[in-house]
């Protein structure tokens, strides 16, 4: 699957189907601090994503 992080950093992950939450934690990200979309659609962090999915992680900006 392709993981696109907030700073436009793109990573290809060789992962068996897994919950988004697990992928975020492995990337050092607290799921409460981000919004996640799969193939353009918002998804909760307990969604199980697969090998063909494109996952975009958007950090919730603070301040202001």
């Amino acid at each position, binding site marked *: 699957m392709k993981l696109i992080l907030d700073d436009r950093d793109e990573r290809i992950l060789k992962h068996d*189907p897994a919950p988004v939450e697990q992928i975020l934690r492995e990337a050092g990200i*607290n*799921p*409460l*601090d981000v*919004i996640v979309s*799969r193939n353009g*659609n*918002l*998804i*909760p*962090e*307990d*969604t*199980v*994503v*697969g090998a063909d999915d494109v996952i975009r992680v*958007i950090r*919730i*900006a*603070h*301040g*202001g």
Partner: protein
Amino acid sequence: MDPNNPGLPVCFRCTAPAVIFQRDSGHHLCGAHLVEDIESRVADLIKTRGMIAPGDRVAVALSGGKDSTALLLLLVSLLPTLHDVKLIAITIDEGIAGYRDATITAAEHLACDLGIEHHCISFPELFGNSLDVFLKGRETQACSICGILRRKALAVGARQVSATKLATGHNLDDEAQSVLMNVFRGDLPRLIRNSGTDSSGKFIPRIKPLSLIPEKEIAVYLMLKNAWKELPECPYTRYALRREVRSVLSNFEYKHPGTMLHLMESREKIEQPCTRPIIASLHSCRECGDPSSSDLCQVCSLLRSLGR
């Protein structure tokens, strides 16, 4: 799970694909039901706390960032249920290079799109200098200095438009962080200060209609409303104690869902018996006349130390 979207949980109300998992309740919600849920919780809070009364002129602090954008959208959506209430948006331009211009533009566009009267006040016109100038060599105090001056600027703006209430977009995360920070500082008066409904006529009551909505839900709400904008982060947040507290509290909330709400409940329990004596003890600042707990208010004291 949704058979058309493998691995995707469904809404507990209608079985449409979920967009969020509310960890404390254990519920999944689809976009339509999340919007309905947030609007309903905000309406309930406004009603139960008596935040807005018929005939109120509500000044909405609109920075153009996510929380104030959500606040204005929600208040506009609730307007038909609020009798004879007028909303006026107020934006404070602190003068933060590379940051504030983008959010001010967003605020102007939003107010214009929603048909809301909009006013902008700048630190230079009110205090003589921009925040960037005030903070030269004092960057580590950025949030305290900005917070004091911004509160004053909003109060001035609210008075200028004859507002009867001042609404800010503080969300649950902000409020829970503030509880924890005040405990860490041992600042009991600030911990229990309630400037919402009982101002005893000394200042325009400040209301926080989003104070029970988690920050993440606000962000998702904006996405669903096509109002999400990727805006820069304030350059001074890296100096803030709040940043550390946010990280600690967010990790705690993740491991122990409901922590933030419990902090708010704790504050409420000690707030009620303590608030009235503090408001009654307020007197007037000898320089500007604003309500103050000491002879000289925080703003006048700060401006003196900044060389004005």
